[in-house]
Structures are given as C-alpha cells and as structure tokens.
C-alpha cells in the first residue's frame, strides 16, 4: 500500500470512527433506551425492532451544500466587506467538507442475501411508482410482492423460538436482540448445537410461510418446517403438501436452482459447473413489476422525456420499451403468467442455472420451456403418460423381419405405448435412433412395449431424448400433478389447465380474461371486479339458453370449473374449463362436478341425468358405480388426491346444501389416520365444520394413537347427531350406525400408489 493509500485509509477510518461517535451521541440524546411508544405508555411492553441504520440520504449532497451556504451567509452577516466575503467562502467550504466527512456511509448490502442479477436492464419497482402510482399500489398490496422477502421482524410471520423436531432433524429457533432469526441444528432433541444457520429469506405471506437458511457456498436451504399462518403453528414441511408420509423430504429444494426463477425478478442461479457453489443473483426479491412487464431500465430512461410520454398518453402508439400483458396476443399474454403458473420442463436448464431465465415478458413459452400436457394412459384408469415432445414416429421390427410404422402415444415407468394395435410378439422398436428390444403387447385401441423404465433412469432419459425432450426431462414425479385425462390437479399450475381448455385453444381466453393484477376485487384470487360470477363466462357465452344449467342456483363455474385442483391444504377451481362427464371419473379418475356437489349420489345417477339433459352417452359402469356414492368411493378408496378433494367437498357450501352434512362424519373419521398428512388435515378441517363438531380438536401431525383417539371421539359425537342421509349408497344405516365393514373394506382396498402433487 502506498503512503497516499495509507493516509486515505487512515482518514476514512477516522471518519468512520467519528460517525460512530456521532451516532452514539445522537442516540443517547434522542432516547434513553426506551422507544417513543415505551415512553408514551410507561409500564407496557412492546415488541422491539432493531435500531435502523441512520439513512444515508439524510445528509445528501443538497444538504451538504445547504450547510456550507448557511455557514457562509452567517459569516457574511457579521463580517461585511471583501475580507468578510473571503472568510464566508472559506467557512462555507469548510462546513460543507465537514458535513461530507460526517455523512454516514450507506448501509452495506446484506452479504447473506442474493447479490445483484447478472441480467442487465432492470430498474426495480421503486422506479415505476412515480408514473404508475395505482399499479404500484395494487402490486404493493398483493401477495405477489411478498412471495419472497428478506427475513426481518416485519416480514417473519412465525413465532421464531422453541425447538422443532421431525424425521430425524431437530432445530432450536432463536430470534436475536438485533432482529436476526437463527436456526440451530441440534444433534438430538434437547441436545448440542451442531450448526447454526441464519434465516435470510421468507417465502409466502398468506397461507404458509417457509424460511430459507444461508448455507455454505452461497446455497439457500429450506428450514424443514413451515409456519401455517392461519393456525399460528409450525408443521413439518413435508406434511404441508399432498404426498404420502413415507415420501420424506421430497419437496425439499434449494432456492438457488428452483424458486429463484419465479419468486424473484431477474433471478440467476449462478450455480458453478461442478454444482458445488452458487452465486445467486436477483434484480428484486418477490414478484415485482418487471416480472410481468420485462426489464424496465430502458422504459424508465426513454420516458424521462415528457414529449414522448405525452405523445403516448395522447395515443401515439404503443411503447416498445415495455410489455403490457393486456395488449399482447393471447398466447404471449398467457405466457406472462404461465412462465411460472405451469408444470413445464425447461429447454435451457443448463444455461438457466448457470446464468438466468431467458424468458422476458412478451415472449412465448416455447424457446425456454415446454408445458407438460400428459397423455391419458390407454388402459390404466387415472394414470397418464409422458407425451412425445418431438417426432412421435417409431419403426417396429418383428422377429420375422417384417416392419411396420407406429406412432408413440407416450411412456411411463412401465413402458412405451403406441396409438394403434401392432402385430404382437418379440421384436424391437426404433424411436429416433434408439433401439428398444422387447415383446409387444396389445390392449384395446393400441399396443405397448413393456419396459422397466421406472427402475432404469438412464433408459428413461434416453427415451425422453429420442422423443424430443430437450433440457429437463419429465419424471414420474411430475406426472403426479395430473388426473388421468391430463388435467392438472396441482394449484398454481393454471397454464396447464388453460392449455387444455377450448376457451383458449379455440378462443382467445387468457388469464387476463378473468383476473386482474391491478384493481382485483380481492388479493387472494386476483379476480377482476365482477368476474367472481357468471359474467366471467357470459362475456363470451352471452347466448347460453336460460335453462342450460337446469339448476336454480348454480354458477357456470360450479359445473365447468369444479374444485378438482389441490394445494395449500384445500381445493380450488380447475382451470381446465370443460363440461362434466361420467366418463372423466370412470376412466380417468377425475372427480366430476355433479358428484362433487351431489355427494350422496352414485356415478350411475350422474350418468343418467347427463344423458337425459345433455344427451351424453353413458359410459360402462361397474357395480360399485351403481350402488355407492361416487364421492364416498373417492373418499374411501381413491388415491391421495381423490381422497383430499372429496374430503374438502364435504365442507363446500353448495355441496352441503345439496347433499346434507350430518351423515358424513363416520366417513371423514376414517380418514383421520390416512397415510397422507394433507388428507388428514382436510378431513379434520371438514369435520370441524359439521354439526356437533365446533369444539372438536384434531392435530393431523400428532402420533397415530392420538389421531385414532380423535377419530373415536368423532364417532362418539356423530352418534348424538341425526344423519340427514341414510342408505347403502352413503354407508350410513341410521342414527349412530354406519356400515363399518364396508368402510373398512373400501379403505383397505384404496389406491395406495404414492402420488406427490407438487405445488
């Protein structure tokens, strides 16, 4: 270091010391250790926030100049004449210099938070406010803004103390006096601290809040416990999602290579080639203006020119420096939301994690990601296939040397499926240069080549490559998010539903047809004003006959967008807009709208009315379809998603009015020991909504014996209630009497195939 550098460093250090002395003096002068509230309300205790750093803007350049000028003016008043003028100038310069030296340094960025995005051109949401105050205000009030926040006393919703233990991990939480949130990993419950990690970010602010711990080498790992805001309690994160208890820590991801791309603006994973380190950067935490309108720096710079601005105000065309989703074509407009609200596979995955998401508002999805639109399984009800993403043609060569062309319908863990019947027997299939030997089997309407793809990840990958999947490859895990007809059943993935809707494929429906990011009626669903009723549909379908619904008090969405999507421990409306059929339930396992309201009716009853009213040909039905309520069957013998959706339907207001409610308790009680925590949570919540259960309590993550005791208590309470539906279809025989044998038999025969509905 040179002498000059040494001198400069010394001066800077002295200035910092001087600032520290000044600040301490100011604090001592301003308060006596108590806050203003504490002085105003002696004796009361208030939550203390850390003392904020003295804002750097307080002594801005203008203020420095002002100090200099004021001192100069004062000197000039008392020292007239030329000598006085010189003295005034000198005093002014000296005062300005002193003010500059005493100016506090701006607060250093938190080194544990993501750094700046390497992607250029972002201005930040603050830059939008001056010109778009309404839009800024409505965004600021939204849950989009608070999707990711730096963890501060203002943003952390949890009670961050005590000890949490689950699946072999124990954390002791601590909130420090200076407002930091520490998670101490213990070697055992009540044991020694092995590591201490700082909580630096939060995800969510409405239903759930998750916490991100700053790990070594720039990684952000999740605290494996989720704060449930409404309930005011911690729940192990795996138990907050629809997955079997045995799935362990499946939803655990690192923030750097997953969340950052949708829960922040301009996110860049910055993952090193060897995958060990992450230099993750963001333009802004949360989903802010530039997530939907594109990088705004050029827009801000261009519109500093008032002539340009007023030209645009007065109608001189579109502003090419920004994207306005409301003025894009339907495909691009929906892509703005669909870039995050969808289950898709990224075509640029390697580049993505190394650099950043190349998608910019105004783009189509194609260049950067491909929506997963699975094909129905040809013969296994309720299951789906990974569809081809490219050329689906295949060449089948049989043992006798003959060859035929075929078209691949898709593949799953058990093999490859073709869309027509092929000659059976041994042979091989050539798909895009990949040769797969095996024995072709035939099923109704097609053939398949059995392959143990579920046990052979390499072959799965090769087949996906051969069928045109580039970058990320769909996994069996991804398929769990879909009903058997390819309808998405995971919340927050509405783009997959929209892509299956005739309103979008044959019309111009976009997300913005019903939703508004600015000026929505409510922040939870962001529906545009007036779009929470039939107007959402009649804005296009104005010519629907008055008697079309055949029900006095049913909304369009009740039949065409039933609650078949699961997330946040509840059901929301499907965003695949279609009409209910009995076949969607018999063949694809997707609950239909009729039986989600008429909980006491069989599928045969639904098929009969759909045929009578809408001339739908009835599908082939089983004996059970004719004798037991469809909802009861989903509840007791369905897969995890069917059970959760059906359990939720029993507390849905229109369903309770149509089907009664005082008969459902013994069926719901059977789910209190389900092997999916989410199913138990929904069943317990629904039970609490039934007559006689207002003061009944249930903890869905309690030990099994506690849950079974709660179920027994529920049965005892139900015995005092007169059921409003009885009969073999609902498995209720009379007051206090349920068909327990049938309930037990159906529960034992439930679909135990593990599914994970990723949110």
């Amino acid at each position, binding site marked *: 270091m040179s002498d000059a550098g040494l001198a400069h460093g010394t001066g800077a250090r002295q200035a910092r010391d001087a600032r520290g002395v000044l600040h301490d003096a100011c604090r001592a002068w301003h308060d006596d250790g108590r806050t203003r509230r504490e002085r105003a309300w002696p004796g009361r205790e208030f939550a203390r926030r850390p003392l904020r750093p003295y804002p750097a803007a307080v002594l801005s350049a203008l203020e420095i100049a002002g100090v200099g000028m004021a001192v100069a003016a004062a000197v000039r008043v008392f020292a007239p004449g030329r000598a006085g003028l010189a003295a005034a100038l000198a005093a002014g310069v000296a005062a300005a210099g002193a003010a500059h030296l005493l100016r506090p340094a701006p607060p250093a960025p938190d080194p544990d938070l993501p750094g700046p995005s390497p992607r250029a051109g972002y201005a930040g949401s603050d830059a939008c*406010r*001056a*010109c*778009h*105050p*309404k*839009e800024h*205000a*409505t965004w600021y009030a939204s849950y989009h803004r608070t999707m990711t926040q730096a963890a501060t006393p203002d943003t952390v919703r949890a009670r961050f103390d005590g000890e949490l233990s689950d699946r072999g991990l124990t954390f002791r939480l601590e909130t420090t006096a200076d407002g930091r949130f520490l998670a101490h990993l213990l070697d055992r419950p009540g044991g020694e601290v092995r590591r201490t990690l700082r909580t630096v970010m939060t995800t969510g602010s409405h239903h759930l809040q998750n916490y991100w711990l700053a790990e070594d080498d720039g990684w952000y790992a999740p605290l494996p416990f989720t704060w449930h805001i409404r309930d005011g309690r911690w729940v192990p994160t795996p138990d907050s999602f629809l997955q079997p208890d045995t799935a362990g820590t499946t939803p655990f991801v690192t923030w750097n290579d997953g969340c950052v791309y949708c829960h922040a603006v301009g996110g860049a994973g910055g993952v090193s080639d060897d995958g060990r380190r992450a230099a993750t950067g963001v333009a802004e935490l949360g989903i802010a203006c530039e997530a939907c309108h594109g990088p705004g720096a050029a827009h801000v710079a261009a519109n500093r020119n*008032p002539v340009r*601005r*007023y030209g645009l*105000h*007065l109608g001189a065309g579109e502003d090419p420096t920004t994207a306005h989703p409301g003025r894009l074509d339907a495909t691009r407009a929906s892509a703005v939301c669909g870039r995050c609200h969808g289950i898709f596979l990224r075509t640029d995955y390697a580049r993505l994690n190394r650099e950043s998401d190349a998608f910019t508002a105004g783009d189509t999805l194609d260049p950067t990601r491909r929506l997963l639109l699975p094909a129905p399984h040809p013969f296994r009800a309720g299951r789906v296939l990974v569809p081809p993403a490219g050329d689906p043609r295949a060449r089948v060569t049989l043992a006798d040397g003959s060859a035929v062309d075929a078209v691949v319908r898709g593949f799953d863990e058990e093999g490859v499926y073709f869309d027509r019947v092929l000659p059976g027997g041994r042979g091989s299939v050539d798909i895009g240069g990949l040769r797969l030997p095996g024995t072709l089997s035939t099923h109704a309407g097609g053939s398949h080549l059995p392959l143990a793809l579920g046990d052979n990840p390499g072959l799965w990958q090769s087949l996906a490559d051969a069928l045109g999947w580039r970058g990320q490859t769909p996994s069996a895990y991804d398929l769990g998010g879909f009903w058997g007809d390819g309808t998405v059943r995971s919340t927050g993935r509405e783009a997959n539903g929209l892509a299956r809707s005739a309103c979008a494929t044959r019309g111009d429906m976009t997300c913005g047809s019903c939703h508004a990011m600015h*000026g929505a009626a409510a922040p939870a669903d962001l529906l545009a004003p007036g779009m929470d009723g039939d107007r959402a549909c009649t804005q296009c379908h104005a010519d629907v006959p008055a008697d079309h619904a055949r029900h006095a008090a049913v909304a369009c969405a009740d039949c065409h967008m039933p609650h078949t999507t699961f997330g946040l421990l509840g059901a929301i409306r499907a965003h695949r807009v279609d009409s209910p059929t009995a076949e969607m339930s018999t063949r694809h396992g997707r609950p239909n709208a009729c039986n989600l309201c008429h909980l006491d009716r069989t599928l045969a009853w639904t098929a009969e009315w759909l045929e009578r009213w809408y001339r739908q040909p009835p599908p082939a039905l089983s004996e059970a379809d004719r004798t037991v309520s469809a909802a009861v069957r989903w509840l007791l013998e369905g897969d995890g998603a069917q059970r959760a959706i059906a359990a939720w339907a029993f507390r849905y207001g229109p369903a309770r009015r149509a089907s009664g409610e005082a008969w459902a308790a013994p069926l719901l009680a059977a789910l209190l020991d389900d092997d999916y925590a989410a199913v138990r949570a929904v069943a317990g919540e629904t039970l609490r909504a039934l007559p006689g259960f207002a003061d009944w309590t249930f903890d869905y993550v309690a030990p099994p014996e506690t849950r079974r005791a709660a179920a027994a208590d529920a049965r005892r309470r139900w015995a005092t209630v007169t059921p409003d539906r009885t009969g073999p279809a609902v498995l209720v025989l009379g007051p206090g009497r349920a068909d327990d044998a049938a309930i037990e038999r159906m529960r034992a025969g439930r679909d135990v195939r593990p599914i994970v509905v990723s949110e």
Partner: protein
Amino acid sequence: MNGHSPLRTHLAWGWVTLAVSVFAGLALEVLHGLKLGFYLDADNETRRLLWRLAHAHGGLLGLLHLAFALTAPALAWRAGPARAGRLLKAATVLLPGGFLLGGAWTHGGDPGVGVALAPLGGLAFVAAVVTTAVAATRRAPAADPGQRSN
C-alpha cells in the same frame, strides 16, 4: 393610492384569490371527509397532489397580491409597478389554473396537458417577483428640489 388606482385592484385580486382558495381548501376537505375515490384512491394520487398545489399556490398568490398592493407605493420602480402587477395577475390565473386542469384529467403519474399552463404561470411569477425585488433594492431617486414637502 385611491379607490381607482391600479394598486387598488391588487387588493381586490388578493382578497378574491384568497376567497377562492379558501373555498377550494374547504372543497378538498369535503373530498377527504366523504372519502371520495376520485380524489383519494391510490390511482388518483396525481390529482390529489395537483389540486393541493392549486389550492396552495392560489392562497400564496392571494397573499402576494395583498403584499404587493401594500408595498408597491414604497418601492423605487423604474417605470411604475404596472408590469409587475400584470405578471402577478397572469401568474395568479395560470399557476393554480394549470394545476387545477392538470389534476382534472391525469395519465397515471403524469398530469393532464392542462398543467402546461403552470410553468407559464411560474415564469410570470418569477418575473413579477424579480421585477419587484429590483424595485425594492433600487435607491429611490433624489427628491425633486422644487417639490414642497409637507
């Protein structure tokens, strides 16, 4: 200064402008009291700002007219106070009027085009104040020796 002098008109301008501004202030308070969205909603922040500016500038200019009327006879005008007075009147119309019109129709964070009157009024205001300041700092011309003092 008699009842018909030009300076007398500034007293009238001052009090009338103050009266209009006071009523405008009351109107703004009523808008607050009734929580009217077209004034208070977040998307009307620009209107709120501009109408408050119109109210404030109107009140200030009204007071300035009064000050001008009371002090102008004591100043050493090069060619009389008429020019400064006209500039002050122009500012009184253009400045609050520009803010009022600019807030009536807004474009997000931008005022309506009526706000273009405001900078014109601002220039007139500056010119009036500078002209008056010059008159205030000039030395009064020597008294006419032939003039008889009382």
